[in-house]
């Protein structure tokens, strides 16, 4: 049984059946990609996993526990961290502070009134954050305001913020959307590096097949709200059903 088990999930918006009978299992320490053409229901599925939407039918089990009806911060505390399409960081804070905040969240929970402790006396947290930054080669930028970073660095910082929590599952929502080819390649390299250097389970929602072929251990193809096939990347490439789903986008599927 996988760390994430999606069973028979369905979601309807008015007359539109966005998801129906979605079954998905993400095994521990694998990279699982969920791809599909526009409107396949990728974002809806993701929002059901993180607590932003509640599916009409079915269940989502994470680590044996249901995530349905829980708030985003509660789901994060269960061990799911999320990377956004456009990096979501604390722009007014320094890079180091950005990475310290998730450390505090892991140690102290959703709320703690630590009003009379000193940030600079938190040696453990500082060390943890600095280690993470040096792992991702961002330590020299630790004292810059995060809002002044380049787009690529913001993505890198967001990854650092998620990884420092040592999540049981890292969710990535189209991590390369809207990026130039060079930036896309950098991001893929970063993800490969992360996969190679630490035990991690990732679920990547992606439109662009290129991004995930070299990265994913398994790929689920979503079309019109329901999984079409699930297989290893080599078998996905040649699958005629997948070509059909991406019809008109065959170049993407190459």
């Amino acid at each position: 049984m996988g760390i994430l088990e999606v069973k028979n999930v369905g979601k309807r918006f008015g007359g539109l059946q966005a998801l129906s009978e979605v079954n998905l299992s993400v095994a521990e320490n694998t990279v699982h990609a969920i791809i599909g053409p526009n409107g396949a229901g990728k974002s809806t599925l993701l929002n059901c996993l993180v607590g932003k939407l509640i599916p009409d039918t079915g269940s989502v089990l994470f680590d044996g526990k249901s995530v349905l009806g829980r708030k985003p911060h509660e789901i994060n505390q269960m061990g799911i961290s999320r990377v956004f399409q456009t990096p979501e960081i604390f722009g007014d804070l320094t890079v180091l502070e950005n990475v310290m905040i998730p450390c505090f969240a892991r140690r102290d929970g959703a709320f703690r009134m630590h009003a009379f402790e000193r940030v600079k006396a938190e040696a453990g947290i500082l060390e943890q954050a600095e280690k993470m930054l040096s792992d991702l080669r961002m330590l020299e930028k630790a004292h810059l305001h995060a809002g002044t970073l380049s787009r690529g660095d913001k993505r890198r910082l967001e990854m650092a913020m998620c990884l420092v929590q040592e999540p049981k599952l890292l969710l990535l929502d189209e991590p390369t959307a809207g990026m130039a080819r060079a930036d896309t390649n950098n991001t893929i390299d970063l993800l490969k590096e992360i996969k190679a250097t630490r035990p991690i389970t990732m679920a990547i929602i992606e439109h662009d097949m290129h991004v995930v072929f070299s990265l994913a251990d398994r790929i689920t193809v979503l079309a019109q709200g329901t999984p079409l096939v699930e297989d290893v990347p080599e078998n996905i490439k040649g699958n005629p059903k997948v070509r059909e789903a991406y019809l008109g986008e065959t170049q993407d599927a190459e």
Partner: protein
Amino acid sequence: MLGLERKDFVFLIVVLALTLAAPILLNPFPENSALAQFNAGYPDLMQRIAIFAIFAVGFNILFGLTGYLSFGHAAFLGAGSYAAMWMFKLLSMNILPAIVLSVLIGGLFSLLIGYVSLRRSGIYFSILTLAFAQMSFNLAYSVLTPLTNGETGLQLALTDPRVLDAANNSGSLPDTALFGLAMNSTTKVEMLGRVFQFNVGYYVCGLISVLMFYVALRIFRSPFGMMLRAVKSNQNRMNYTGLSPRPYTLAAFVISGMYAGLAGGLMASMDPLAGAERMQWTASGEVVLMTILGGAGTMLGPVLGAGFIKYFENIFSKINETVLHGWFSALPHAIQDPLVWLAARFTGEGWHLTLGVLFMLVVIFLPGGLVEGGQRIGGLFRRRKTDDPEHHPKRAPHVAE
């Protein structure tokens, strides 16, 4: 030291020294000189500056850190004043129980209003707090007359029980005091042609305000303070980082409400009466002005803003036409009269006009307030070293989205 970095500790000591020396520093002009009316070293004004500094420093914990702009903080100030007055009437003229109760009432009241108002953010939050404050004002003004004495305001009376105090047979109203030390007792020292007034009430307010400044400094440097800045920066990221922004914001709201309650309690302790006008929206607006004028989100800003506005209110409003005629008396009448007329619009009762113009200038040219002004002047002297826009990013907007 005291849980502060060395730099902050020195900063605190400087603030403490300035507070202690204020009766001297604010009296730079000799008695009977033409400039004597610009002296601010008299007890009433100094007490006000210290009290409003507490109010603004507390407000800045909410507004400066989380970006939530409350337009109703005067309600907590007023509630604190009423609470203190009831302690004076029922229990004792000692200001200690009065201050303790005013802080508690400020905290409770802000918990109630904050819990409801913080369901919204941005302009909706501001409007909710404004509505609550106006409701409180009207309650105090009419509905709750038995508790607040309506438009007359709550005052001391000879018939008050004051169960802890000895029987008062003097036939006059008792003074507020701290263990026998009357708030209105002043030692006057004549020196160098100046009269320095060392007032007990001022030193009580001043020392409490330094203490509250210290508390705020600790909050600013704590992980909690960092979370409050995170609230202002990106609540979405906070949620997906496993943090719940609501309790953090509510805690900041209640802390600032307690600061406001304390300020209200001290106001009543210095001058034992409390009226509903203390809760009016203009009073809420005043603390917003102070914080922005001084520099929201900075430590010293609200203190500067409070001092600046209270100084203007008291000094500029005293410059009437007679004084102006005195200043311009050297000029011929044909020039003197229009000049006096023009200047009178901006002084005396027209001091709000000067304040308004200054506020606009600060907001347009110094969005970071007086503190930014100070930093820019400081920057002129060491420009070559740190001319690096990358490390001095533009300030974030004040209000949370």
